Structures are given as structure tokens and as C-alpha cells.
């Protein structure tokens, strides 16, 4: 009976896996070859032929070693969640922030909503229309990146809406705090600003991002499977 662990261990000796992990892989592969060998012996083959046939399952040990290392180590660098949610999310967030800064510096004046209508005193919300329009392609990019990485519908929606999440969190904390503490910390914050702020920084950008991203998601889901 061949010592399969010794045979496999020798061929995987140069592997860069951690010693404990390499031992596990060697034990597992040796077990597989041993079972294949035993089955061939049961079928009536000689020990030599059975060993040769079992061993022929691996044509190139160096290539197998590389594939195993890649499968067990490299995928750690970027998990599915990173590729499907975090990477597209941060790309859309970064692009939206950069464009907002550029538009604030170089773009036209924003729409300023005041208590008594659209005028430039006592502003309660500031709306950058060019920025909102630029969120359409940014939403599309988020949907494309998440979809390309095989993201589910939920992951894709999260990637599309990612740039509004910081504003949503801020609004969710700031509005109740302002309303509860009143004049102590927000004596100059009007209730209308508390309501219109989220509209300008969460609802409208969210709608723009989804308007850009959802058609891409729809196109991807309807696209026939590629071979």
C-alpha cells in the first residue's frame, strides 16, 4: 500500500500555505487518492496499475499547487462583499463628493430655498441642480460595478444609493437631537430646515442615483446569459 500522504506531501512541499493548512490539504488529497486506489484494486487492477491510474488524476503538480494556493489565499484579498458592495459603493461616494466640490467651486449658483420661497435670505435648503444631474451616471456606474461583480439586487441597490447613506445617517441623528434639545444646541436651526435638509441631501440625490442606476440593473437582469 503506497504512503499517499508522503507522496502528496513531497509534491506540495514548496507550497506557500501555512504549515497547518498545508498538512490539512495533504491529508485531504492523500485520502482522495487512497480511496481512488482502493476502488481500482476492488475492480481487480494490479497494485501498480491502480497506483498509476490514481496518480494520473494530477497531470501537473506544480499547476495544482498554484491553483490551491490561489483558491485558499488570493480570494481573501477581495471578498464577494467587497467587490459587490464596498468597492462600487465607495467609488460612487468618491465620485459624488468630488463632483459636489467641483460644482461648489466652479459651477453655477445653487438653488436656495428660504422660508418665504426661492430667495437668498434665511436659507433652509441648498440644492445643487448640476450635482443632482451628475448623480444619474454615478448611479449607473454603481449598478454596473455591483452587477459585474455578480451582486444581488440588494447589493446593487446599496451600491447605487451609497453616496446618500452618510447624509441619511446624519439626518437620522441630527433631526431628533435638534428637536429634543431645541435652543440648547440649535437655536438658529428652523424646523423647516430640518425637514427640507434631508429632502435636498437625501431624497433628491437618492432619486437621481436610482434613476441612473435602475435602468442599468434592469438591462443587466434582462440580458441573456452569456456562454
Amino acid at each position, binding site marked *: 500500500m503506497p504512503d499517499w500522504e508522503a507522496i502528496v506531501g513531497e509534491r506540495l512541499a514548496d507550497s506557500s500555505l501555512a504549515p497547518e493548512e498545508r498538512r*490539512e*490539504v495533504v*491529508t*485531504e*488529497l492523500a*485520502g*482522495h*487518492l487512497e*480511496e*481512488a486506489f482502493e476502488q481500482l484494486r476492488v475492480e481487480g487492477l494490479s497494485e501498480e496499475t491502480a497506483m498509476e491510474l490514481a496518480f494520473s*488524476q*494530477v*497531470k*501537473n503538480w506544480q*499547476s*495544482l499547487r498554484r*491553483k*490551491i494556493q*490561489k*483558491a*485558499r489565499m488570493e*480570494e*481573501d484579498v477581495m*471578498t*464577494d462583499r467587497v467587490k459587490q458592495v464596498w468597492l462600487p459603493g465607495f467609488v460612487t461616494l468618491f465620485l459624488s463628493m468630488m463632483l459636489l466640490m467641483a460644482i461648489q467651486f466652479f459651477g453655477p449658483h445653487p438653488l436656495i430655498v428660504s422660508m418665504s420661497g426661492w430667495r437668498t435670505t434665511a436659507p433652509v435648503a441648498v440644492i445643487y441642480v448640476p450635482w443632482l444631474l451628475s448623480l444619474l451616471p454615478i448611479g449607473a456606474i454603481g449598478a454596473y460595478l455591483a452587477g459585474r461583480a455578480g451582486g444581488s439586487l440588494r447589493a446593487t441597490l446599496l451600491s447605487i444609493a451609497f453616496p446618500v447613506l452618510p447624509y441619511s445617517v446624519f439626518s437620522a441623528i441630527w433631526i431628533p437631537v435638534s428637536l429634543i434639545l431645541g435652543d440648547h444646541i440649535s437655536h438658529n436651526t428652523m424646523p423647516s430646515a430640518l425637514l427640507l435638509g434631508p429632502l435636498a441631501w437625501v431624497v433628491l440625490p437618492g432619486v437621481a442615483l436610482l434613476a441612473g442606476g435602475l435602468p442599468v440593473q434592469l438591462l443587466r437582469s434582462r440580458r*441573456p*446569459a452569456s*456562454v
Partner: protein
Amino acid sequence: MIGPGIKRGTAELAVLSVLGDGPLHGYEMARRIEEQTHGSLRFTLASLYPLLYKLEKRGWLRGAWETSDTGRRRRCYRLTSEGKKKLVPIRREWDELFRALHRLTKERHA
């Protein structure tokens, strides 16, 4: 016999499907796939284990060492809940592809 180009894409589906019936160790998995596909799909050690490790890394499978009645230690794989969820759309996509190819070849012969 199915050619290697088509086989490449079916490997994940084959492994996930056969594990859908219950936990298995690598050798048994390869044997079941070969048996159930009447020899059309054949996994060798070199093609099976890199795939199992990759699917395990993705969190679709979970492997655990078990000792058989004969005292042999084997690593048994089972589908995780994420793997079960992934199997549904993958099956649907392949069903769609096979139906489309079937329609195409039927129209050619008509």
C-alpha cells in the same frame, strides 16, 4: 461527451447541486457527479479541490473533518445558507441557457 469549454462553466453548478442532496467528502462528490451524469462530467483530484477551496472561501460551502466508521479522517463539505441561496439563480441561468440552446437546435432541425 461534453467538451471542456462547456464543462468549465458547469463545474460550480455540479458541485453545488450534488451537495444540495446532503454533505459529501471530495472523493464521494466526484463519484456521484460522474455517476449521475453518466460519465459526461468527470472531476479529477486536480479539478475538484481548487474549486472546493474557492467555493469554501466564498462562503458557499463549509468543510469539516469527520472520522468514518473505518477510522479514516475525511473532510466533509456541506452547503452553507449562502451557498443554498446562490444555487437557485445559478440553476435558473443554466436552465435558461439549456432551453435556449434546445430551441435553437430544434429550429435548425425543423
